[in-house]
């Protein structure tokens, strides 16, 4: 990723601080990416779910988050677009920077953040509305100004990008719930694309799907990364290896007070992480010695 020099100048705190903060984790090379976390802790009430996560996600790449269940992958993911705001007890310390702006700063609008950083969930969750409306709704509420035919184009474009158009073009008025699981998930991806985000977060998007549907989604992700930065949580290491450019391994440890707090072990290019991991814990995990 090439980085415009003036951007570093415009954001004086960004470059040096990142380099310090990420320390051992390999992220500083590329400079600030589209999204960065800096010493981020996430709490649920008094429970610290993840501690001290600093990582930087690069433009137009797929990053994968892996690790044993309960290590806080979903928690980290939700913190990246303030979906954690929906959980009353959740609290984030540290910073998450999006294009250099801390999204947890008091004057930042979480609604705006979520439009730019879209999300696809573990279980497909289409609205109980027509396929067309599923996609059009997001655009409408975000102030879509085009005509009716513009809207049709937008819906078609989103469905084409999500590789769903051919399957549904004759039944746009049918309920989104009438589709198969894999189609529903692609509908959810199309819906996310239609509001023109530049990052898409996916939390185990294939875990509820059969292998064929999974394959289609994986192919789709590879196509989408031309235009979007994608961050995906997966419990499936093969999937991470197949689709991602970089992979982060999270682990969970008992801290001194007996809490099971997750932390980032290693964030490296995927081929590096799976062949020559830096950390012993990563190696144990990917070779299946635990987790």
């Amino acid at each position: 990723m090439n980085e415009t020099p003036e951007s570093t100048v415009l954001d004086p705190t960004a470059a040096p601080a990142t380099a310090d903060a990420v320390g051992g984790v390999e992220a500083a090379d590329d400079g600030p990416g589209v999204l960065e976390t800096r010493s981020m802790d996430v709490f649920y009430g008094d429970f610290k779910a993840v501690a001290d996560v600093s990582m930087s996600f690069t433009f137009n790449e797929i990053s994968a988050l892996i690790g044993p269940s309960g290590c806080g992958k979903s928690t980290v993911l939700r913190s990246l677009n303030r979906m954690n705001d929906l959980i009353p007890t959740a609290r984030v310390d540290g910073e998450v920077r999006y294009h250099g702006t801390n999204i947890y700063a008091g004057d930042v609008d979480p609604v705006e953040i979520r439009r730019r950083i879209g999300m696809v969930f573990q279980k497909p969750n289409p609205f109980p509305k027509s396929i067309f409306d599923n996609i059009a709704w997001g655009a409408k509420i975000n102030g879509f100004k085009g005509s009716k035919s513009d809207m049709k184009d937008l819906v078609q474009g989103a469905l084409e990008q999500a590789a769903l158009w051919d399957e549904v073009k004759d039944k746009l008025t049918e309920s989104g719930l009438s589709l198969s699981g894999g189609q529903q998930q692609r509908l959810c991806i199309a819906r996310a694309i239609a509001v023109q985000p530049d990052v898409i977060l996916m939390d185990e998007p294939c875990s509820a799907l059969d292998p064929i549907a999974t394959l289609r989604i994986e192919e789709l992700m590879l196509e989408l990364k031309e235009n979007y930065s994608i961050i995906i949580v997966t419990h499936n290491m093969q999937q991470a290896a197949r689709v991602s450019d970089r992979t982060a391994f999270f682990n969970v440890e008992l801290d001194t007070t007996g809490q099971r707090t997750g932390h980032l072990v290693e964030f490296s290019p995927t081929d590096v992480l799976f062949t020559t991991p830096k950390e012993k814990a990563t190696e144990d995990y990917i070779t299946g010695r635990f987790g």
Partner: protein
Amino acid sequence: MTSETGVHDATMAEQLKRRNRPFERVIVGSLFISGAISIAVTIGILWELGSESLLFFREDEVSLGKFFTSTVWQPQAGEFGIWPLILGTLLITVIALLVAVPIGLSAAIYLSEYASPRVRGFFKPVLEILVGIPTVVFGFFAITFMTPLLRSIFGESVVGFFNVLSAGIVVGLLIVPLISSLAEDAMAAVPNSLRQAAYGLGASRLEVSLRVVVPAALSGIAAGIVIGMSRAVGETMVVTLASGAAPRNFDLAADPVFGYVLNPFQGAQTMTGYIAITASGDISYDTIDYNSIFAIGLTLFLMTLGLNSLSRRIVKRYRQEYD
């Protein structure tokens, strides 16, 4: 896509600035007000009951002490002791519970532990219909069926036209569905593993129901009974119609306890009955009669509030046991 240029700069920070969404604020504000109206209702009730009662107790004929100790309620004669009205209420409540608890609990145990889906499918709607019938219709039923029945059984000289027994039985019928559905909910919440454990020890169905399920659900059942009691205390139409408009003034030293004070065959006005009858004429404001209904109302309110919080406390304790 903006991502290609990778500008992380002041313009982006500007775009992410918190929007002022006045429409959204107005909506949330009015939703909050809708919620807060319920607080206003409570304040209204407390204020109105309190202030009018205060006026009542300020009257020369009335004293707080006498109100809570005297056993004569005779507004015409300036006697304002609440006990006769409480007596009427309690008599009817007790009779109602004597009717409703056995029926309600048996119904609940049967429906929850014994009944096949088909039998349930018949009985449940019947109980639901019973819930939906207005209390004034139950009042009509008490007058036209229950009272004549009782009078023909026990004799017209024994049973008065207005009597507590008829009112109590009908109020009991009215709260059966309430008690049975709350008890059934409590028993449904008993984990099945407990039943299986007992069956595994060779217990019969009856033993499982009565020795395992009912004790495990006991606090839920008790809470349901207390709620039913609170309903009976606050019930108005049946008692107004069937139990008459004469307070049962008594003198514990002189009156026979079973022959008169607790006699179920004669009428006795209740707290709710007094309020309804007094208010049903063209009642003029700021008279002692007008103010007295609020003093009674306050007592009634506190009684039902006490019963309702008692039931909630019982349920809470029950939850802790299970966690």
